[in-house]
């Protein structure tokens, strides 16, 4: 499982006190909360949105967190709660982008060559080398770009991050059944894309 919802090291009592102060009106204390959890949120967002959009989405996450602070029950860690907000903010980012109907980049010859090289690889070391190439990240981005925002969110959480269906449902605020169905459909869609990605048919 990914460690995105794991709590950051820190004094829990100190954090409770910080939250209490913010809720009582010490707005400036929210800056301490941002400093403590910023890196955690950036890690989640940077894996999900283009690099030039990370800052804007992280900003949005903390504004949403401030607005919704009164609804934070402390039954979960603050990190886990922020992870949920971050994941939903990224989902909203892709929904907005889909509405704007921005064109999705196509696979190039380089990418097709990378796929062929992966398929031809026999040893583990060479396979790992291929997976670390720039083309791998680009092919993944291309494939995710073809999916609906819902399927993209679920596929990223369940198949790429390694969360369980229940955990993914909790983070997205969706039902377990919905996430389970989407996880299956998203995986099928990804496989179909890769199946048809051979030279000339993409």
């Amino acid at each position, binding site marked *: 499982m990914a460690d995105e919802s794991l709590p950051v090291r820190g004094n829990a009592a100190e954090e409770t006190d910080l939250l209490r102060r*913010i*809720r009582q*009106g010490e*707005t*400036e204390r*929210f*800056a301490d909360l*941002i*400093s403590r959890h*910023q*890196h955690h949120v*950036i*890690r989640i967002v*940077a*894996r999900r949105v283009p*690099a030039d959009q*990370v*800052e804007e989405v*992280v*900003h949005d996450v*903390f*504004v949403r967190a*401030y*607005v*919704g*602070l*009164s*609804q934070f029950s402390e039954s979960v860690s603050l990190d886990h709660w922020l992870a949920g907000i971050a994941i939903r903010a990224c989902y909203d980012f892709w929904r907005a982008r889909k509405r704007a109907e921005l064109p999705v980049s196509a696979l190039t010859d380089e990418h097709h060559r990378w*796929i062929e090289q*992966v*398929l031809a690889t026999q040893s583990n070391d060479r*396979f*790992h080398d*291929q*997976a*670390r*190439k720039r083309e*791998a*990240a680009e*092919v*993944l981005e291309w*494939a995710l770009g073809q999916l609906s925002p819902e399927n993209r969110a679920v596929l990223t959480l369940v*198949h*790429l991050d390694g969360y369980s269906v229940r955990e993914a449902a909790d983070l997205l605020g969706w039902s377990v059944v919905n996430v389970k169905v989407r996880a299956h459909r998203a995986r099928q869609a*990804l*496989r179909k894309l*890769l*199946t*048809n*990605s*051979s030279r000339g*048919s993409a």
Partner: protein
Amino acid sequence: MAHRDDEIQKVERALIESYRSRSDLQFRAADVTQGVMREIRQKSESGRWDPSVVLDQLVWRTATIAAAVVLAVTVVTVGLIRATPGESEGLLAEEFESAPLYGDY
């Protein structure tokens, strides 16, 4: 030519590994603290985004909707209870009077 199932699994594994091997170093972004605090201060000054204000608004909205629903249900229920006995008698009488019997034509 399309890829075979085992080939697809291999590409899938490579993509998952690519995703998981991304270094944390590339996740450095500018500090958002100042920007967020500026926005929060602006909204707090106008009183729109204070957490307690948001909670208050939520409580009042929920209470208003709940009260409206209870009122509507009460009115409908009272209306049904009052209407039922008299209405059934009246309707029956009306039906006997107005419905033509065989041979009345």
